[in-house]
């Protein structure tokens, strides 16, 4: 077990005027750990994810990240260029809608290659070979490398987005409803893929989802949010098998059994 957390989150709150986005959220995320944030629409889970990934400035609180050089840096004390570099290299962000995370009018290969160029890769042959390798890992045929994502199905676009994010070997990936809007067989394929990649690459992830089955399958630990507050937090099995809070019990008892 590695003894230092990757991310140290303390008292993150975000207010939209008088309305609460999320309030006083604190946790540590460890290397190799997958954290699921669950809750209904409007519970603040996406606000929290956006604060954690610095896409949104929290009203209060601090987030420290364990850099590759072993130092902790406070994310909001970094300058914009440093933060952008971190997001392009050491982090990934998988959006619910692939169109938000992909460049729809350049080829699939370029979508993957662009992140490699951001970390300094310049050799065209290498970039293309790596892109083909990654397309294979997300089960996209190599002969689609020159096609634009516009020509891809929803499931393929989502897999391409994952390849684009993972190609730089990030240590931390944020996912916002990665399976939302996909039909169940495509969902299962994507979940299995994400699960395998997380395991093989040993990366840490924070996954926002309203689907408890997704949380069960992917995460080690989960946080349940309601009205901007984290109301229950613990081992995923424990929260789902023995929910304590009234809202969590309602959520768990509302799952449809197949």
């Amino acid at each position, binding site marked *: 077990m590695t003894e230092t957390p990757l991310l140290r989150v303390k008292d993150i709150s975000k207010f939209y005027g008088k309305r609460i986005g999320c309030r006083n959220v604190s946790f540590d995320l460890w290397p190799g750990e997958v954290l699921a944030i669950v809750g209904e629409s409007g519970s603040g889970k996406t606000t929290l994810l956006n604060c954690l990934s610095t896409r949104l400035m929290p009203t209060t609180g601090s987030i420290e990240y364990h850099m590759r050089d072993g130092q902790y840096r406070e994310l909001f004390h970094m300058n914009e260029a440093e933060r952008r570099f971190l997001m392009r290299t050491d982090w990934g962000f998988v959006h619910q809608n692939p169109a938000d995370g992909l460049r729809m009018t350049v080829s699939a290969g370029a979508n993957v290659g662009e992140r490699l160029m951001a970390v300094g890769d310049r050799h065209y042959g290498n970039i293309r070979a790596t892109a083909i390798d990654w397309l294979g890992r997300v089960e996209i045929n190599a002969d689609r490398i020159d096609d634009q994502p516009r020509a891809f199905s929803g499931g393929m676009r989502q897999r391409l987005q994952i390849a684009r994010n993972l190609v730089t070997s990030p240590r931390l990936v944020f996912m916002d409803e990665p399976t939302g809007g996909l039909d169940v067989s495509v969902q299962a394929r994507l979940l299995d893929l994400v699960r395998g990649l997380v395991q093989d690459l040993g990366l840490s992830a924070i996954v926002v989802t309203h689907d408890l089955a997704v949380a069960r399958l992917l995460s080690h630990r989960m946080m349940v949010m309601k009205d901007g507050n984290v109301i229950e937090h*613990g081992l995923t099995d424990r929260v789902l098998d023995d929910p304590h809070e009234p809202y969590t019990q309602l959520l768990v008892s509302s799952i449809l059994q197949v």
Partner: protein
Amino acid sequence: MATPLVVSEVFKSFVMHLRDGIRLPVVADVSFSVASGECVVLGGPSGIGKSSLLKMTYGNYAVDGGQILVVHKDSIVDLATADPRTVIDVRRHTMGYVSQFLRTVPRVSAIDVVAEPLTARGESATVARERAAELLSRLNLPKELWQLPPATFSGGEQQRVNIARGFITDHAILLLDEPTASLDARNRAVVVELIEAKKKAGVALLGIFHDDEVREAVADRILDVSAFSPRKALAAADA
């Protein structure tokens, strides 16, 4: 003799918020221990809290009070208060669990489901699959099924996958929740042999067996869970 699992003064109740917050007491003041090479069987009628006790030991259920102590990597961990990361590490290296039903993962083949606890500990996929194949053939699972995801298997086939997955590691503690419930006599006998082998290897086993024959064959000691029933304690106080 080493004692890798000690349960001490454990209390548990469920609060059902969807039913006006009624409190259902499950067990009270549970204390016992399991030694290396010993198989302790939880006994008592249905609904008395046997499965709950097993789930608390594995960390799926929280406890209201008391300690669940396991020897993990040469130190003692209290699972009642351990953080999620520690519980996961204990499950990976120290404590295995064969649940009553297999929770299937879409698209993962039976053989990889079985091999996973080994690969999760850093064993190579080849070695892990070899071990998985040995166990699956020992449990008479037809070879044609090995490469298929177990979601469409029969109850007995799924349970054998589940057993193989639980027995593949050399965990020092193994929890068994009715591992033989949907097996035929031949495969029940295989499970009894596997349990005997674990005992010889010094594993501490804690299990629930409704099948009398299997229970007779494997149990060193039967722990009557109804002794910990809070309802019984209440009844005694009233009398």
